[in-house]
């Protein structure tokens, strides 16, 4: 990944009739970056991708790829290629002809085309399958052919529209790692659209989270998880307990807050938050709460409550705790270290939280 921008999107807007699909989109993507647009369905992420590809015109703003304005350049002349959600494998062509489809327009010799097709198929581990028919491919193979067909064009940018959503869980996870490795090896910029937060987190250098046509936050996966800019982003990525809090003093990047249930804590000011106020919303990740039958040592805030629900996930156990003075139950996730479920419904338990685990989400009124 370099500091050089490969895609620059500024002030882009797209309307369908009275519906605004994408509004005021500003985004710079770095050369060699794996970038994901993450959001619920209908948030405008696919529209944004299709505008980069050239399948949709933007009503306002500009998109440039590698320094060149794309306004008058149709999809077939753009240095970007796309992997479609349905893979769009040409059913009347075999694997080799599918991959060679775009090369035939480049005026290459037959031998050259053959070499590049073989090379691309090798890259996606389908070497030697040139003559396989399209309808004889498995889901995973179709995905690889779609990838090879786009990569063989040596695009500056590869666009991926929910590329793994049609695969079953195990295959999807294997492909996530493989695509990430491939992207790092080739150094091509990948822009992926997905609604799967885990997929976005495990594969991307940076993630842009979109809601209702607007980009809410663009950051590295770990920063998004630790410092989400508001409640919406915080609840879309990972689990989160939300608590009301009151600011009682601040200074030097820290603030003293009185958190519902847990009492006085000193937490870091979240730089991604736009508006602060005396009435704050804070969040705590379920896996960062300590739970015990006895009051645990070494925590900054405590709360006593009753177990209202136990959910066994295999790798972890989730407890839901109801406590006096809290509107909603708190979720606590405990890793399954010793194959034990330590607390049952109705048990009285202690929760402990550390200052560093409490995430400032800004003014409560602006959520």
């Amino acid at each position, binding site marked *: 990944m370099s500091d050089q921008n490969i895609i620059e999107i500024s002030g882009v807007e797209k309307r369908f009739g009275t519906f605004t699909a994408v509004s005021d989109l500003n985004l710079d993507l770095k050369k060699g970056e794996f970038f994901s647009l993450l959001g619920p369905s209908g948030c405008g992420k696919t529209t944004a991708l299709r505008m980069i590809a050239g399948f949709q015109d933007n009503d306002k703003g500009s998109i440039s790829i590698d320094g060149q304005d794309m306004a008058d350049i149709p999809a077939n002349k753009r240095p970007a290629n796309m992997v479609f959600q349905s893979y*769009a494998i*040409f059913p009347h062509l075999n694997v080799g002809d599918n991959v060679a489809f775009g090369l035939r327009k480049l005026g290459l010799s037959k031998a050259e085309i053959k070499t590049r097709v073989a090379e691309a198929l090798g890259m996606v581990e389908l070497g030697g399958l040139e003559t396989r028919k399209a309808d004889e491919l498995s889901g995973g193979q179709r995905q690889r052919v779609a990838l090879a067909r786009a990569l063989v064009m040596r695009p500056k940018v590869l666009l991926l529209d929910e590329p793994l959503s049609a695969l079953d869980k195990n295959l999807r996870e294997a492909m996530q790692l493989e695509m990430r490795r491939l992207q790092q090896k080739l150094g091509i910029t990948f822009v992926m659209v997905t609604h799967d937060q885990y997929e976005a987190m495990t594969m991307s250098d940076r993630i842009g989270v979109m809601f209702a046509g607007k980009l809410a936050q663009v950051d590295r996966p770990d920063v998004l998880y630790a410092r989400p800019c508001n409640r919406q982003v915080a609840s879309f990525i990972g689990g989160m307990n939300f608590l009301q809090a009151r600011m009682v003093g601040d200074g030097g990047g820290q603030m003293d807050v009185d958190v519902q249930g847990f009492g006085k804590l000193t937490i870091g000011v979240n730089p991604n938050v736009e508006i602060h106020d005396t009435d704050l919303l804070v969040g705590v990740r379920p896996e960062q709460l300590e739970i015990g039958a006895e009051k645990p040592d070494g925590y900054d805030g405590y709360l006593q409550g009753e177990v209202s629900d136990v959910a066994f996930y295999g790798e972890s156990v989730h407890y839901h705790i109801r406590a006096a003075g809290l509107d909603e139950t708190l979720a606590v996730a405990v890793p399954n270290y010793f194959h034990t479920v330590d607390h049952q419904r109705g048990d009285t338990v202690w929760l402990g939280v550390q200052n560093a685990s409490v995430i400032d989400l800004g003014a409560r009124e602006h959520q």
Partner: protein
Amino acid sequence: MKLLTRFPWLFVYAIAYLVFLYLPVLLLPLFSFNDGTIVAFPMKGFTLKWYAGLGGQETLLQAMVNSLIVGIVTALVATSLGLFAARAYVRYRFKGKELSEGLVMLPLVIPGIIVASSMLVLFISLGLKPSLTTVVLGHVFLALPFAVSIMKSAFDDFDQSLEEAAFDLGESIIGTFRRVTLPIVAPGIVASLLVTFTVSFDEFVLAFFLSGNQPTLPVYIWSQIRFPAKLPNTLALGSLLLLASVLLLLTAEYFRRRSTKSA
């Protein structure tokens, strides 16, 4: 089979229905082999002379050629129009789409005699004399609903991102149509060509009104039926046409099924 024992009357009804539907049609080929000019039982003996006699009749052959020309031109025009219309109907939303689809399908329900007489009036007032050209125009009108509905089913299963993928890979709009759209809907095109050809080839009412002094085969057959001596000849010809129609439609159905399966 369980159904049969439980509803024996349903079985009887089905058989009666099939007999009523197909027995008259089967009599046609049967009597075409009868060695006698009267179409009635008992039959006199087996002969192929009525078939052999077909080759020597010049007006008949001319009518056959006329029908072939009209059929082929009709099939090509109706299928081309149907191809583009169907793609638009399946792919795009536009004002008046439903009205337009309804109008295209209308010929299926308008009485042929009404269409035929009004077309005759129209063409004559336009200075267009009844000829094979006017028959083609009439037949295209009649065959279009078949072409559109066959092509629509071919496009229904056509994933739009296939065309986008081709365009994205650097192909032009025309190239995309040629290299992706056409080959994928090709079975549908063949099915449509065969069906529209058959529609035109078998059509009588429009051809009767619009063909002037260039009769198509059905018009010729009708003119022959009035002469009892020529009836067996006509039966032989009709049997051949029946066979050809069935074969064409079976082939068309094969291609139509392939077109909905492939995409």
